[in-house]
């Protein structure tokens, strides 16, 4: 965590200060969050059994609260998922019930995608549970991007053996690769389609590709994004789900 000191190399490219590990990781974690956010998202899922596209509206505040409401397809419209801290609740309008996802079901796929319920609530922990170090920089001869290698802390509740995060020179996230302890690549998250949104340049697609499963993927595309707007805390309550 203190490797940014290494980065102070008298490099000819380093006109600006070299990014710290924390900055690089935050680039990946928070590029679409800000202090709060409101967005419209499309999700495309392809598995060997089915293909699915969905349209959703999402709000977030801080790093621990997120609300997602499904807009399309019509069958699922109105289904709302609230994530707060480590908990997930689903509101189902057709039956007018709110169900908390029990621990045993956290391994279940969220809306049939490759993201598990667990993934959704854990997505913002890169800097907390890992020891990170920069293993590559653009222009160091081998790399065109910043490469950060993350190894889970000995006691962290992370199944992976290693994560490799690549960040573009312009500090936009490029990819995150997940390896098991034997060094096998298990899945890859790639960020692409850079456009201007919410007043800044950012990748508008995020694709999760499991390794070894031909052609399967889940792609999230930001259609709209507003950052740092007013989002009341009450949005992220179980009661508010029914709205």
């Amino acid at each position, binding site marked *: 965590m203190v490797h940014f000191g290494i980065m102070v190399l008298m490099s000819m490219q380093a006109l600006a200060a070299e990014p710290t590990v924390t900055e690089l990781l935050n680039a990946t974690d928070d590029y679409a969050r800000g202090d709060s956010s409101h967005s419209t998202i499309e999700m495309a899922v392809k598995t060997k059994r089915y293909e699915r596209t969905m349209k959703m509206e999402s709000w977030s505040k801080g790093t621990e609260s997120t609300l997602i409401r499904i807009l399309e397809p019509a069958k699922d419209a109105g289904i709302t998922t609230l994530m707060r801290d480590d908990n997930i609740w689903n509101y189902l309008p057709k039956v007018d019930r709110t169900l908390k996802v029990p*621990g045993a079901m*956290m*391994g279940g796929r969220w809306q049939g995608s490759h993201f598990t319920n667990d993934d959704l609530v854990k997505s913002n922990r890169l800097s907390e549970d890992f020891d990170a170090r920069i293993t590559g920089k653009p222009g160091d001869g081998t790399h065109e991007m910043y490469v950060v290698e993350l190894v889970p802390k000995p006691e962290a*509740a*992370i199944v992976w053996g290693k994560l490799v995060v690549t960040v573009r020179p312009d500090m936009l996230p490029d990819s995150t690769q997940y390896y098991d302890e034997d060094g096998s690549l298990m899945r890859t998250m790639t960020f692409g389609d850079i456009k201007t949104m919410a007043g800044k340049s950012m990748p508008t697609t995020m694709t999760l590709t499991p390794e070894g499963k031909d052609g399967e993927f889940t792609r999230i595309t930001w259609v709209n994004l507003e950052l740092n707007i007013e989002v009341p805390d009450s949005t992220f309550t179980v009661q508010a789900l029914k709205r």
Partner: protein
Amino acid sequence: MLLRMAFRNLFRNKRRTLITMTAIAVGMALINVTITIQHGSYTDLINRGVSSIAGHVVVRSPGFLDDPELRVTDSAAHAKRLASVAPDAVVQRRIMLGGLLSSTSGSAAVQSVAVEPEISRDIGSMYDEMVSGDWLETDRDIIIGARLAETLDVKEGDKLVFMGQSGGEMTSRLFRLKGVFKTGAADVDGFMVVMPFAAGQEILGGNDLATMVTLHLDDAAAWPAAVDAAQTAFDGTDVDVLSWKGALPDVDAFITADRSIGQGMLFALFIIVSMGVFNTFLMSVLERTREFGVLQSIGMKPNQIAKLVLVEGALLGFFGVCMGSLLGVGLSYPIVVSGLDFSESMGEGMSNAGVVMSTIVYGAWDIPRMVVFAFACFVVTFLAAIWPAWKVSRLEPVKALRNQG
């Protein structure tokens, strides 16, 4: 003197005596073997149930039956108190906790048992079923079923994250696979994991919680006294103190049901054997009517003759029972030592009321019961001699001499 006469009388008709004794012996032997097999399998079932999911004495939260998530606090204090009840016995604490186990390949809903590694190993449970790896040592070790290991595609040393829920809070904890067990029962091998007690408590977040605190006696038969003592010791506290029967009602029920079938058979054998003995005896007495007449006429009192007959009955019973006991022990010896292998008919493993049954059934000698039955057989034989003896005592010498008793 009567005794000698009785002996001689019995030996006079060797074949008949022998066959009658054989009837008694075979009947007794079969009773013995049945009791031995029953006792062995029941004891095994109880022991397995007791060691894996209960104890001879169980301390747990009231309301556990309706809500298995309820736990007791201050488990260490309870353990100490329970230990004071039977200083030579083993006390262990356990936590049952459902959750999600994840590897890099996927995740599965599991039921975990958190046990104190040192103590639990000797009590049996999963230690005996391990097929690879080692028993729990450090707080990060975890042991899972073979099927689960396959589903999650993990081998010893791999990371596993367990996420458990307690009181609405979800906690994740890292483990490394230490070993794999295989019981043969699919729902256990695909669903159960064993972790160290300390890890379980950590997941539950403090308060010294445990699902149950259990006492394991060396001498299983001493459980009633232990339960009583425990209930006294825990009087006034807010926990439930149960015997293994209360904690394992399904096991208890199964044994009761199975036993009643056995009783029916034993009852039948008893009656048949006693009828056979009665027959033989009566016959042997009646055919000696003339002889008894002679005895009477030379001065032997009817009572004495009756006694003679009774002594004969007693001897017959005694030797028959001895023979039967030896035969029974002999027949059941291989069953006690090497057991009956039921894996053909039971498949790999079967769980009954939550307890995995062994496919090899070992017999166990239930000495008290065997002694009681031996005694009963003896008494029955003796009783079979009473009516003939009575008849003999009513003999009139003259008629008897004419062989018309």
